[in-house]
């Protein structure tokens, strides 16, 4: 069992990712874009490891350079 990442930490990490643009929508959702790929993630309080893995993939990042505080790699 492990703690999920906090949404705010994940958003912060995405914002700092190279080549990725992030738009925070008025309803709290986020839109992330990299190259021609765009994805909208609905706001949630926490983000699971599985979802974090997907987000890393979408953002072209690896585990080492994208891990929000509080969610160390397994």
């Amino acid at each position, binding site marked *: *069992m492990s703690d999920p990442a906090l949404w705010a930490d994940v958003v912060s990490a995405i914002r700092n990712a190279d080549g990725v643009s992030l738009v925070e929508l008025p309803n709290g959702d986020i839109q992330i874009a990299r*190259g021609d790929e*765009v994805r*909208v993630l*609905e706001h949630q309080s926490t983000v*699971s490891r*599985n*979802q974090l893995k997907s987000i890393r*993939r979408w953002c072209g990042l690896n585990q080492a350079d994208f891990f929000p505080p509080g969610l160390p790699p397994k």
Partner: protein
Amino acid sequence: MATYTKRRAGKKPSVAVASHPGGAVAAQLTEPNGKSYVLLDNLRVLITKADGSWFAQGLEIDYSADGKTVADVKKRFQSGLSKTVEAHLRVHGNVKALLRPAPSDVWTEYFDAKNALHRFGHSQFTVSPSAQASLPFDQIVFVESKLSA
């Protein structure tokens, strides 16, 4: 998705269709006034549970969502994918860039778990960016993996 083919143009509505060997189909109909509708048919979604939450991962389209329950993760996947389709229509005018499958490790998990899967209902999913945020998806196959903790 294997192909993305535009079938008609001009004053009539144009239709672009992409299909996957597994049976998934994506179709976009664009009216002459620019309004688009997208149909995603027979998408497979792997649903697993780990670390106390449910996770839905699309196979033919690499989109995923978290949820507190199976029903919640389905709802979040549907609405999040609907918003993503709308975003692609706003930015690109089409969903071509969205039609990329999940990576091989996700597919491996799907096939490894195949004998322990539940299939949920089929439905149809249509999006019109201006008229409706999301409609019921009726042809997405949700798959729950019992192998996950």
